[in-house]
């Protein structure tokens, strides 16, 4: 059994296992997939929700967002991958309340006519990642009203910047919070993303139109002579878990969690 926390192979029982003092009653997002083969049933389940580390009731405690991916063979867990987001998003002091509740939109079962195969789901998600990495909105099969939630905040079609600190709004980040997924790409606001690498499509649920990809967004930082201004100063690589809901061939909703790590880091898988 292999266990990682934030890309590091550590002994199970250490890391967050040793510091967690509370977990939310429900997870914000979940996806699962089973496959039947000669060796029995292989399953993947992944999702995320809020937890607390340290003393829960005083200043010595802190909330964090925990993503967990389990792989099972038969009844045994063979892989545990976790990502712990310990920094509240976009300069906020706290994590958004939204992360305490399950995402009903993601859990909804699709009409049979809107469903695609696993390959269709992977293709749609890949198109999104390619489009973001190459600044090409034409590669992204997203509906115009597609919502994207990142670490609990809505980062598209959010003209009032709900949940964002004023410092982030005034920076003009993401090319404009009021724009949609593809319109943001057209502003070339994501040129600071050099690559989206090491993509792993870890679970797909065709009934719900869900596919989860774990990957790294490489940010080289403010590179001399780049011809544009990166909002990220120092190089880093962001470990992202991105869940897509695809219906009728188009991405309808995206929910993601992620945190920044040293530039070039690998996931340990």
């Amino acid at each position, binding site marked *: 059994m292999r266990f990682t926390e934030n890309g590091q*192979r550590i002994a199970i029982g250490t*890391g967050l296992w040793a510091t967690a003092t509370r977990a939310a009653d429900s997870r914000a997002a979940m996806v699962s997939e089973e496959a039947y083969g000669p060796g029995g049933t292989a399953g993947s389940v992944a999702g995320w929700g809020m937890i607390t580390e340290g003393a829960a009731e005083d200043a010595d405690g802190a909330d964090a967002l925990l993503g967990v991916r389990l792989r099972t063979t038969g009844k045994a867990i063979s892989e545990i991958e976790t990502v712990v987001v310990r*920094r509240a998003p976009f300069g906020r002091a706290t994590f958004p309340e939204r992360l305490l509740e399950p995402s009903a939109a993601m859990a909804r079962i699709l009409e049979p006519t809107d469903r695609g195969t696993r390959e269709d789901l992977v293709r749609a998600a890949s198109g999104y990642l390619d489009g973001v990495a190459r600044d090409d909105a034409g590669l992204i099969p997203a509906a115009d009203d597609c919502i994207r939630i990142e670490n609990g905040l809505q980062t598209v079609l959010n003209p009032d910047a709900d949940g964002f600190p004023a410092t982030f709004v005034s920076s003009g980040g993401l090319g404009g919070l009021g724009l949609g997924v593809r319109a943001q790409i057209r502003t070339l606001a994501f040129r600071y993303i050099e690559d989206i690498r090491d993509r792993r499509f870890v679970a797909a649920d065709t009934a719900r139109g869900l596919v989860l990809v774990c990957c790294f967004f490489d940010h080289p930082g403010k590179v001399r002579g780049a011809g544009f201004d990166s909002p990220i*100063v120092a190089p880093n690589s962001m470990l992202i878990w991105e869940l897509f809901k695809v219906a009728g061939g188009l991405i309808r909703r995206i929910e993601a969690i992620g945190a920044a790590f040293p530039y070039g880091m690998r996931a340990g898988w």
Partner: protein
Amino acid sequence: MGEVSQELQERRAYLGSYADRYFELLPSGGHQQLPIAPGVVFSENGQRLRLGQGLWATATGAARTRAVTVLDGPAGQIATWGMVTEAGHDAILGVRLKVDDEGLIDEIDTFVVRFNDMASTFSGSGLLDAQRLAGPTPGLLDLVDEGDRPSAAELRRAADGYLDGVSSGEVGLIPVADDCPRIENGVQTVLRADGLLPGRAPNPATAMGVAQQVREGVTRHIAAARDRGMYLTDPSRGLVMVRFFFDHPGAVRGWQGRAPFIGPNSMPAWEVFKVRGGLIRHIEAIIAWFPYGYRWTPEEQR
């Protein structure tokens, strides 16, 4: 013997010039102008990158003089650190260069300590005294009298004794003088007359010496000083450098001590000890905050 010394002397001279050149070329990204061996291995903060990536692409300035240098002539290696700027932001750059038999650089390890870094696992603001790190640490490069001079093996033992003592809480393992200062990211963290770190609340531990801090349990939150390596020794100056990780498990349930970190993290460090007469007389370190369990090389992560 004299011939060897001559060769060593020359090697020391060009190793020093290579380090100077590294810092000179950095702000312009001119890594191609370094005397690089084919197949050179380059890493930044434990990640194998192409030479030219990372700080090579973002640096906008570098100090002309560096705070700390350890030159290991027989091993053909130099390690040094000093201040750089990245898009106007201060950072500390540690560089280790190794040369091959032909005098070309075949290994480059770098450690970039950035402040207010998104990738840092420390949510607070790290301490930095950029001014102190802008020039050589006084006395660090002084030659040690023959009678007080440690061997390379003794230097390693002293460094390991310190790390063993700090991580286990056994002060008897640490061969340190009572008046030994310790400078971390340019800030003195022991024997402070003011009893506080700059910009922080008063903390009596800062007035203690190295051994007293360990004796009083100040370092109990450190679970291990692991993956020690990159030992460079310079007996003539009584210097040894080692890189390693301090593991901080964080606010572990049921632990009675006071953890300075809630979530777990691993603190990478490059640490230099000056040893004279069998005792550590001065400690200089650069430190950062990485994910718990982080390793120095990608191979170790698998």
